[in-house]
């Protein structure tokens, strides 16, 4: 082993540790998005104009793909990977939500609901009103004149905006009808996107629920009316299950064509290898130097795209990076399986973000470790294991921004921080916990909800455990095991 390999290894590690922007699309530059984007054929179906609902759990890539839709350069590249998907003509994309200057915000919405009650039909009107305000510049002159009173109130005053909308009668719909007709003549599509809907209510469950129901109701009603003016609603899986489903018939109209942003093991490894390969020519060369069945394509926009027939095709490369096992000899499992298994949540969903993060963090740790390892290995298994704790902390921290009441759950469990719990025990501990944004569930239903979110896992023996992705971040540890005699 020569000093040359050590230097090369450190350089590769340095590139690896910065490759994924910590896996977050929200903060990624266009170049990073392009390099990081892996075109999963089923996900690309969301480009079909008839697809309105896109459902996926946290970290499944919703935000990334919603950004992709608004990047014309990326869209053309994607067409090469989704030849069977019906793509829109000359599409224009507008972000309707999350909040921008033109959109309502929580206090305004809260005030509206206080005055008008939690009526999804009224929320539908609110959504429509703000949609028209967003699209003002796309409406014809006649529409802009007719709807002038709608554009006057400032966005924060939801009640005023709604009152103006209601007073206009059928004019708003007529304006959008004309817009759709214009788009049809021009043979173009206009899409509005709605993402990060969990920020609707700032943790207020009722607000989120009625807001989502109103939005779903809007597009269930008008999707068939307008053929060239369409929406894309990105909804988190648990929100879809809990809030949107109560939308009844409205939802069924949209659900039939929905896209589920799930990731197969093959797609996950392809995504990871694409990220690594496109980070630098040196990393690309390193990956391709190993023996594997992977075909490496070159795309003008997406860069190097690995094609895997099966997820096991990634194994030789992962073993080249880390070695075959996570421990000494046969211990602790095969690396290429361990990686996916340990970034699963409690319902066995695996996400791209933690998979990328675990490699980045391990690379960062190993870059700073002076100890040598044999060529061609880059990473130590122990670094991967330790990275998991950091990822868990990040994951929980993220989840707390969406579900602030989770902190109260964590605090309640601190007194007995060892999993697994019996169901009776954990329900008892969560009884009567208070938080202003606490979900309106009994403690039993709350446990079920946390299992649905993947924060906990129900074992075959009925006890409640926590997956590694959340274990450390929630301050929990695993009980049991045989003690070594001192």
């Amino acid at each position: 082993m020569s000093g040359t390999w050590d230097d090369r290894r450190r350089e590769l590690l340095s590139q690896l540790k910065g490759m994924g922007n910590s896996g977050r699309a929200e903060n990624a530059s266009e170049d990073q998005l392009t390099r990081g984007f892996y075109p999963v054929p089923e996900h690309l179906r969301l480009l079909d104009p008839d697809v309105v609902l896109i459902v996926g759990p946290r970290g499944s890539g919703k935000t990334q793909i919603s950004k992709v839709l608004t990047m014309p350069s990326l869209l053309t590249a994607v067409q090469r990977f989704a030849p069977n998907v019906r793509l829109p003509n000359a599409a224009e994309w507008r972000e309707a939500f999350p909040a921008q200057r033109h959109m309502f915000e929580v206090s305004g919405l809260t005030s509206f609901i206080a005055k008008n009650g939690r009526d999804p039909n009224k929320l539908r009107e609110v959504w429509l009103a703000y949609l028209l305000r967003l699209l003002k510049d796309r409406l014809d002159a006649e529409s802009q004149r007719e709807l002038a009173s709608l554009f006057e109130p400032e966005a924060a005053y939801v009640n005023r905006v709604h009152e103006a909308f209601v007073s206009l009668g059928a004019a708003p719909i007529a304006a959008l009808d004309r817009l759709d007709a214009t788009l049809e003549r021009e043979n173009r599509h206009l899409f509005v996107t709605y993402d990060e809907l969990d920020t609707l209510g700032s943790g207020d469950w009722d607000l989120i629920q009625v807001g989502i129901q109103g939005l779903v109701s809007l597009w269930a009603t008008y999707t068939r009316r307008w053929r060239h003016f369409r929406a894309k609603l990105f909804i988190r899986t648990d929100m879809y299950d809990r809030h949107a489903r109560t939308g009844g018939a409205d939802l069924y109209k949209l659900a039939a064509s929905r896209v589920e942003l799930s990731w197969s093991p093959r797609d996950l490894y392809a995504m990871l290898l694409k990220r690594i390969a496109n980070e630098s020519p040196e990393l690309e060369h390193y990956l391709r130097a190993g023996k594997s069945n992977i075909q490496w394509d070159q795309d003008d926009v997406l860069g190097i795209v690995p094609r895997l027939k099966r997820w096991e095709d990634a194994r030789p490369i992962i073993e080249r990076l880390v070695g075959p096992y996570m421990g000494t000899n046969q211990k602790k499992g095969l690396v290429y399986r361990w990686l996916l298994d340990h970034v699963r949540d409690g319902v066995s969903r695996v996400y791209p973000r933690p998979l990328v993060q675990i490699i980045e963090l391990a690379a960062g740790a190993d870059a700073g470790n002076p100890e040598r390892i044999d060529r061609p290995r880059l990473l130590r298994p122990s670094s991967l294991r330790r990275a998991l704790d950091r990822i868990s902390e990040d994951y929980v921290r993220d989840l707390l921004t969406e579900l602030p009441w989770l902190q109260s759950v964590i605090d309640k469990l601190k007194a007995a921080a060892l999993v697994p719990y019996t169901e009776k025990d954990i329900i008892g501990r969560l009884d009567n916990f208070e938080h202003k944004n606490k979900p309106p569930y009994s403690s039993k239903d709350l446990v079920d909800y946390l299992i649905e979110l993947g924060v906990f896992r129900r074992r075959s023996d009925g006890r409640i455990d926590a997956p590694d992705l959340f274990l450390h971040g929630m301050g929990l540890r695993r009980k049991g095991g045989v003690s070594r005699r001192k």
Partner: protein
Amino acid sequence: MASFIHFDEAHLAATNIIREWLADTADTKALLVTDLFGKIRLVIFPRGNVASLPTQLPKVCGPWWSGEILQADELDDVTRKIFADACQVARADEEQQRLQLLERHRSRTAWFAGPVNPPWSALNDGPPIIVFYSFKGGLGRSTLLASFAIQRARAGERVCVIDMDLDSPGVGRLLSADRDGLMAQWGVVDFLIEHRMPNLQFDDYWHRCDRISAEGEIRVMPSGQLDVRFADKLGRVDLEEPPSARESGLWCLLERTRIELKPNWILLDARTGISEPAGQLLSGIAHLHVLLGTVQQQSWQGLELVIDRLGGDRVRAGKPQAELILVQAMVPAGEPGKWAIEAFAGASETVFENLYYADSEDDSDQFWTVDDKQTQDAPHVALPIDYDSRLASFTDIADVADTLTAGPYAEIGERIANRFVDEEDS
């Protein structure tokens, strides 16, 4: 009429009383000896105020009490040394570190020997030694072993199969030289009797099973010819030899197999239950143990003993666990099967947490800990095999060879092979 005190009750009661006594006594250690007949005696090092022990112990032990409480510094030098040496091989009590427990056995001594290591490194010196074991019979253990042998042979490798189920031989006949059941004239039992003799011809003890081995080779050492002399020969085999002893029959058998037959794999079909040969084979001499069980309680009771032996016993002694793969056998079809798989998985996770995985106190590469459970390769994650009536009633192995290289058998075969990935290849 005075009630009868059982041996278990006497032993437990005596242990508890001495634990309490030691807790109140400083600078003293104790050795509780249970002899071949179950009689209990106490040796105190160096000496101690026995207080009420002479009254308490006979009362709780009943007929099992020997009547002896020995103070070490009152013993003659030879006797004192014998007991001091005995402390080295005794087992430390789990609750009281100053109490050692020495059990003398008439049989199945291999179950009580300390953990041992395989005779060579599987990856460096090869080949891997794999034991197939089930606590109860009739679960398809030999069939599973045969399936792995066939898979590796079809991959072009040489496999040696050794039928160590001496009381109830099977796999030698299953993998006979032809469809008529032809086998080597001599087998394991003969080797164990004869192995110290000069000019022994190792080729006398095995045959080839070519009809299913494709490009590879399956070499089979049967238990021996099941004729009128078999029981007589079996009675001459010492199955109590310490498995780690290099001059033991088992060790010699493995060594000669490796040197003379040069296989890529050595597969051992183990006797069921808590038998002497099973004690040897489950001592740690193998690189991997494939354990078969079912969802039934009786099956789990036996498996727990074995899992503790391969795991917890070794962890407590500061040694890494012996490697194992768990297989759930005889899974019924349909909904009952789904229930059985879930029930087995639940039981398995709990048993392994209690008896196999080390606690998470340190992040050692050497041990499986409770923090390693969340991977498909974790030892407690069982691989199910559906009940297949064809496999319960076939005439010849060649008729079902294709079944044994597909489906769950292929998955298990891959899991076994994945335990021996050469770092050089990756």
